């Protein structure tokens, strides 16, 4: 008999298998919702899917009664802009500092501990200081993402750099490379796939920080809407928004995988098992 670890499902079966747990979750939800509705016809906690669909349609396809805006799209645009800015800046900063710390022992000694410590500070707890320094506008929301995500990126990337085979760095030096050249031609391209992987892992936390920032002070955005309607437990808005955020995050994840495979084919040559 074939070992379990050697059983590879065929392509079609794989898709079916991937769908299965989602279908199960949907069924459990529908049952739970129906039960609560039976007990209280106005229940707001687990609205039936039909009601969520109606709400979603209203938010996405009908202009808001008061502002005339298409709420879902306005929120999405605002949040994605903040997210892209935050993640983009975090990636650039994380890459630069992580590479420096990982490659230069002096920088590692000087800043390694600093960033290890900084990455442990809960950003939410020092929000008041952030507000004063960065104001209450867009900047502070983007900054919260950056502050939340960058230290982890720095740590992970610098660990990755210092785990690179020494042979490669030595080989590069015997080919005449200076520190700068090693950094940009040997180390940088090799940690790019890792950066993408890190960014994939950081999409979740980044959304978390974004939503928290939007919950604290904002007038538009996905997190703003969720926390606004939480005031009257409108789960028929919250749940579709959560699904939408998850979908956006998942698509972003897929996009990063795709970019990785296109831009760094060498890193994926042996990957499929």
């Amino acid at each position, binding site marked *: 008999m074939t070992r379990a670890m050697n059983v590879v499902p065929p392509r079609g079966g794989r898709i079916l298998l991937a769908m299965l747990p989602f279908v199960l979750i949907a069924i459990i939800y529908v049952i739970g919702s129906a039960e609560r509705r039976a007990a209280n016809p106005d229940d707001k906690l687990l609205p039936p899917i039909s009601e969520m669909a109606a709400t979603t349609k209203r938010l996405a396809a009908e202009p808001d009664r008061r502002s005339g805006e298409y709420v879902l799209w306005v929120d999405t645009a605002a949040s994605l802009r903040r997210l892209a800015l935050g993640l983009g800046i975090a990636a650039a900063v994380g890459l630069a500092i992580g590479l420096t710390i990982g490659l230069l022992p002096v920088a590692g000694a000087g800043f390694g501990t600093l960033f290890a410590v900084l990455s442990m500070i809960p950003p939410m707890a020092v929000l008041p200081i952030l507000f004063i320094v960065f104001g209450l506008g867009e900047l502070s929301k983007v900054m919260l993402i950056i502050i939340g995500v960058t230290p982890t990126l720095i740590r992970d990337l610098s660990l990755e750099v210092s785990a690179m085979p020494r042979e490669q760095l030595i080989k590069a*030096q015997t*080919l005449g490379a200076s520190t700068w050249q090693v950094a940009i*031609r040997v180390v940088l391209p090799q940690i790019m796939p890792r950066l993408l992987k890190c960014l994939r892992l950081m999409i979740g936390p980044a959304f978390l920080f974004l939503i928290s920032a939007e919950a604290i002070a904002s007038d538009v955005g996905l997190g703003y809407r969720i926390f606004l309607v939480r005031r009257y437990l409108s789960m028929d808005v919250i749940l579709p928004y959560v699904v939408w955020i998850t979908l956006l995050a998942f698509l972003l994840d897929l996009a990063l995988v795709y970019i990785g495979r296109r831009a760094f084919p*060498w890193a994926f*040559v042996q990957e499929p098992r």
Partner: protein
Amino acid sequence: MSALSFRNVWVEYGNQVVLERINLEIASGTFLSVVGPSGAGKSTFLRLILGQERPAQGAVLLDGEPFPAEPGPDRGIVFQRYSVFPHLTVLGNVLIGYEFAERKFSARLFGSARREAIEKSRALIDAVGLGPHADKYPSALSGGMQQRLAIAQALAKQPRVLLLDEPFGALDPGTRAQMHALIKPLWRDLKMTIVMVTHDIKEAFGLATRLIALDKTRRDPQAPERYGANITYDLDLTRDSAVPVLGFLRAQVEAQQ
């Protein structure tokens, strides 16, 4: 000029002595073969010259000067384990040496400078027999092909000292002969000093002008780590006299008869 001197060099890992009391003068332009049993410290010996390892005691000198304690373009290396850049194609792996030298800041060549460098690189790639694979990434090459790429890479820089750690071990005899035919004239023309670790006695004798054997001279069965390896044989192969059979080869010679 690229003469190497070892003055009473010791290398230790923790409490394990790997090399002890190494005293050696290698004249400029020597082709030195290093042989010895597995684990004797041959790779360690090369790492010393490379500047990757510092001696626990003693000093290694280049042309009488204390050694720059870091690798540089004057000393090329082919490692025992394939060590090419996984993120560059075969062509890119050879090209990068030229790019490092000519563009300090961007380390990238464009236009005619690039075309020239590509031409030189392609010639080397063809010489090691990887012509049809120039656009592949290392992960799609066989073990021997990666090793040949590493050789081409090291040769591109025409280093003064070339360090080879079992460079042809993974190659079939045909390809190996090709590599010999490639390296010998280069060594002669460029007046390189080559230090080559090999297990192939024919190769060691066939290519080199001098041969040293590294082995332990004393052993303590209870504490094998207390004694390190030393130079047990040192043969000048340029003299036209008969070469003595090396003691530690006897088992092998017998086995093959």
